[in-house]
């Protein structure tokens, strides 16, 4: 030890290679913020989002470069393994999609481009830290780093009351969630005397399993994380915030936050608390069941597409939580697989919705997509595919994802929840098919109707800046690419199986 210190007198060894994705994100965030201060309009509106994309691309490159390493960095505070890698890939992909969706949007313009994209990159950094966290403190730091930029991002359309309201609501309710979580972390530390995941796991296995302090801590931790993953009954901010936030931010929250939240749920329950699974499994299963029911029935009869997708995300969170709750390797694999699929289909849907918000005066109302099939098949098909995939129709990736979740549940002996997933999917057709119906079987509302609808006061579009009727190539690109991927992986799912297997292998030692 001493000899080693003498040979390397320059302080602790830092594995920069392992940290490289985080470095890329933090560095990108700083550079983007600085470039955003330039006077040149071109630099602000074009270079900034481009640099964001570069930063995310480099992050993805670093993850792939470090794919086969399994490193505990910064004195074991962060684990860069394949689970972290997979979730990083997902959130970076979500970030790329959100950047494309907001490129010519209203939100970055109102809040200054540099700030907007810098905060997005900051939030992504938080997500990576959260998933990589190996102790309670890092977990909390990651969670706050994720959340705080998101609160601000929700309120970036400052001239629109709904956006401000969404940001404020998210901040207040989110603070309650964070407080709950940090309280839970404190109790767990108090019960086990350790902040380290492996230390806590070791302490529990030595006989603290039914300690009141510990169990209360787990309860609070569960609620805190369930809040972030918008699991019912802690979901209530979701529809309001999804509807009010700028649509690219909604898309980002839907896919990236969800991926990070479930990544950390897997980590916490399957690495830190596997010895407690008899205690927490029933609670998670019930929460999953409540989410499936609440999300699916709540989405019926919504007239706002974003609100509909908000409820749908609650239901989908229930499906994914079921994969976490069974606490088997197969369940973990199914969870990760579903997160990938969820990203693909949601981006396809949001891409089409953002495009329609900018092209029509109806915002995110159903009217915005009425008659889309005849008018613009390149947007109609991705939206249709996304809806079918969310409902789990075969030949889409959504079917593969649901199939594996159900397989994992039945394999672990929770057939009742599998049946609930199927029933939930049946109910979900009631609202997903309404969208498809509007796209293909309704005709576009006439010009008189649009005159009556007047100026849009709904998310994403604003007449003073955005001329209606514009079609933006990057939106179309995102929708088509992600919609195409949804179908492709429905037919050739093997790459997803491999990815999920790699990521879940990280956990298999603990399970």
């Amino acid at each position: 030890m001493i000899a080693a210190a003498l040979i390397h007198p320059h302080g602790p060894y830092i594995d920069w290679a392992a940290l490289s994705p985080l470095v890329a994100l933090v560095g990108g965030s700083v550079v983007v913020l600085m470039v955003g201060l330039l006077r040149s309009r071109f630099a602000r509106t074009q270079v900034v989002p481009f640099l964001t994309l570069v930063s995310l691309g480099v992050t993805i490159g670093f993850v792939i470069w470090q794919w086969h390493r399994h490193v505990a960095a910064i004195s074991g505070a962060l684990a860069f393994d394949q689970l972290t890698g997979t979730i990083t890939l997902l959130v970076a992909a979500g970030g790329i999609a959100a950047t494309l969706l907001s490129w010519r949007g209203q939100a970055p313009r109102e809040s200054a481009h540099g700030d907007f994209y810098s905060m997005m990159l900051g939030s992504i950094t938080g997500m990576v830290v959260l998933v990589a966290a190996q102790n309670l403190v890092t977990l909390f730091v990651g969670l706050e780093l994720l959340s705080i930029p998101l609160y601000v991002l929700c309120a970036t359309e400052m001239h629109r009351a709904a956006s401000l309201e969404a940001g404020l609501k998210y901040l207040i309710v989110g603070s309650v969630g964070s407080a709950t979580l940090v309280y839970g972390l404190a109790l767990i530390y108090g019960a086990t005397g350790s902040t380290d995941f492996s230390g806590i796991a070791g302490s529990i296995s030595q006989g603290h399993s039914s300690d009141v302090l510990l169990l209360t801590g787990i309860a609070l931790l569960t609620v805190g994380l369930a809040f972030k993953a918008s699991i019912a009954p802690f979901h209530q901010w979701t529809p309001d915030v999804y509807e009010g936030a700028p649509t690219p931010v909604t898309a980002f929250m839907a896919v990236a936050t969800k991926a990070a939240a479930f990544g950390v749920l897997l980590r916490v329950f399957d690495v830190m608390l596997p010895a407690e699974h008899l205690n927490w499994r029933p609670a998670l299963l019930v929460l999953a069941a409540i989410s499936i029911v609440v999300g699916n029935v709540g989405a019926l009869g919504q007239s706002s597409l974003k609100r509909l997708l908000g409820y749908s995300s609650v239901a989908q969170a229930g499906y994914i939580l079921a994969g976490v709750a069974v606490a088997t390797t197969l369940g973990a694999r199914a969870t990760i697989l579903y997160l990938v699929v969820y990203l693909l289909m949601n981006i396809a849907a949001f891409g089409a919705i953002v495009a329609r918000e900018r092209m029509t005066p109806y915002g995110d109302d159903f009217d915005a997509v009425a008659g889309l099939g005849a008018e613009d098949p390149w947007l109609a098909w991705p939206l249709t595919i996304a809806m079918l995939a969310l409902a789990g129709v075969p030949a889409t990736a959504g079917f593969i994802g649901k199939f594996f979740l159900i397989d994992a549940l039945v394999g672990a002996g929770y057939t009742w929840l599998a049946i609930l997933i199927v029933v939930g999917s049946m109910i979900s057709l009631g609202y997903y098919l309404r969208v498809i119906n509007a796209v293909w079987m309704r005709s576009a509302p006439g010009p008189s109707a649009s005159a009556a609808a007047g100026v849009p006061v709904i998310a994403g579009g604003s007449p003073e800046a955005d001329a209606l009727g514009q079609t933006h190539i990057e939106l179309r690109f995102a929708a088509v690419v992600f919609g195409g991927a949804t179908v492709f992986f429905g037919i050739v799912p093997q790459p997803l199986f491999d990815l999920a297997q790699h990521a879940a292998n990280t956990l298999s030692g603990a399970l």
Partner: protein
Amino acid sequence: MNATHAAWLVLAAPLAGTLVIALSFKWLPRQTAGWIGTLAIAVSFGYSIVAFVQLQSLSPEHRELTSSLWTIARTTGVDASATILVDPLSVFMILVVSGVSMLIHLYSVSYLKGDRGYARFFAYLNYFVFSMLLLVLAGNFLLLIVGWAFVGAASYMLISFWYRRASATQAGIKAFVINVIGDAGLVLGTFFIFRSSHSLDFVATFRVAPHVFAYGSGGITAGCLLLLVGAFAKSAQIPLHTWLPDAMEGPTPVSALIHAATMVTAGVYLIARMHPLFQLAPAAQDVGAIVGCLTLLIAGTIALAAVDIKRVIAYSTMSQIGYMIMGVSAGAYAAGLFHLMTHAFFKALLFMAAGSVIGAMGGEQSLDRISGMRKALPFTFICFLVGGLALSGIPPFSGFFSKDDILAQIGSRGGWYWALYAAGYLGAGLTALYTFRMIFRAFLGEPNPQARELEHGHLFHPEQPTNPANGEVEDTDVGFPGPDHVIAERALPMRVAMSLLALLAIAGGIVGIPKTTSWLENFLAPTFAGSTIHLAPSNTLIYVGLALGTVIGLGGIGLAWVVWVARPGSSTVIAARLAPAYRLFAGKWYFDELIDALVVRPATWFGRFAQGSFERVFVNGTLIGGTTAIVRAGSAVVRSAESGFVRYYVAFVVIGLSGVGLYFLVQS
């Protein structure tokens, strides 16, 4: 390029053709779609030849190649991947399918030129060829089922091609429904086999089959019988045959390609492909042979009484496929496939010639009105005659060798197979009789007005287009046949296609002259090397069979001459004398009525009953009404909780937290 690469390209060409035509038809100039489609199939045929040459360059025991493009799912218990199997059998099939399809595409380029759905037709037709090639190249049950279902779908779309004709759409639905019964049989049969073999792959299944299935055991017999249901539905064997005559509602090239030369032979291919399984289930083989034999007789008698020229050929197709099914079920694989090939040539030719006749008649198809076309349509007449002679098994035309080959092999099995042998020759007599009844009635005798008009150089056009099935007046817009009628004498592509097919129909038998060439048998030998049925007909049987076939064929033609040419009017006398038999034949043995009474009516009645009682009260009232009420109420509750006030949201978090916390405290 090795054989599997070529086989993938065989599949890719028609798929590319259908996509190109379907996606770009708006910008394609007139007739381009037809040429693109024909070119795609020609490329496919070219690569089939490459695959053939490459396969022949391998030593016989290595002529079984598989190639996987990607894995669909490989998890515990399932091994599904996109695999093709290239062996002599599949190469033989792709050669026949792509070769005949190419000529029929060429024919269609002219024949359909007036139709408003021209590009749609070629997109469908290319899609059909892709599906059929997928079916015969499939290397596992999964792709086989996919190809099988695609072929059924393509057939439906093409039968109902003139979608504004009610009779055409009904025929399409009928064909689709019966084909789906066959699909169900195929899928269930696959399941029975997969349950024991644990593999979807053909090669693996055939390898393990003798070890996991006892000879003649229930499992394999059930599996093979269910496969036979699939084969019977696709190949129009009794009692699942009623869709084929109705399928003649489609355009004539469709009848030539799908309902004569290729798709309907899928059942024959299936039995030949599955021969290692069928040989473990002798009962299923016997069922196949007997059903094939019954079909060939019954269809032959119906063809004697049918008056629609296309339906006569359709019943003839059924009858000829009966020979093939009988042959491959009895173990005469090479012979059955030989007949499949020659039949594809002469039957496609007959349909093309019939299409030309129908063109000259301005859409009219009834033999009662067609007569004396010989002078007006000299080229068509020669082609029709060549096809008819080949069909009737007159030496040296191709059908002569292939049909007698099947019958000699069956005869060599002895025992009760002699009954099949005798029935086969009886059927041959019927074949000659109905074929020349059709030829004599259509081409000889007094020229009708349309023929006279054509002899003076003017192609007849009816005043207003009508549906030949029921005489309803139609227009010539999209969804109906176009305004133009086409005859082979005036369209070069049609003449080229028909001439080539006529040559093949004349000389196609050369690949299987008994004791002389036997090329086809030798080529297919590696596929059937493991066959446990060894048929070696004696020389006597072969030569007697050839002589008998000639005599019976010529006798049938002679009889037709006497009845319909030498003594006109005697046919009505005979029909009156044998009134019950005639009614039976003309009523198509009442199979439609039988199915109607046994299946359709009881099902309809039960459906009405169930709808009135069970459905309305229990399902709609209680189940659906109750469920939707619950879901609606739940939706209202969830939405009313979504008040928009942060204080309530926080309250909910606290309530939920209390619930979760309480649970964990109870656990401690």
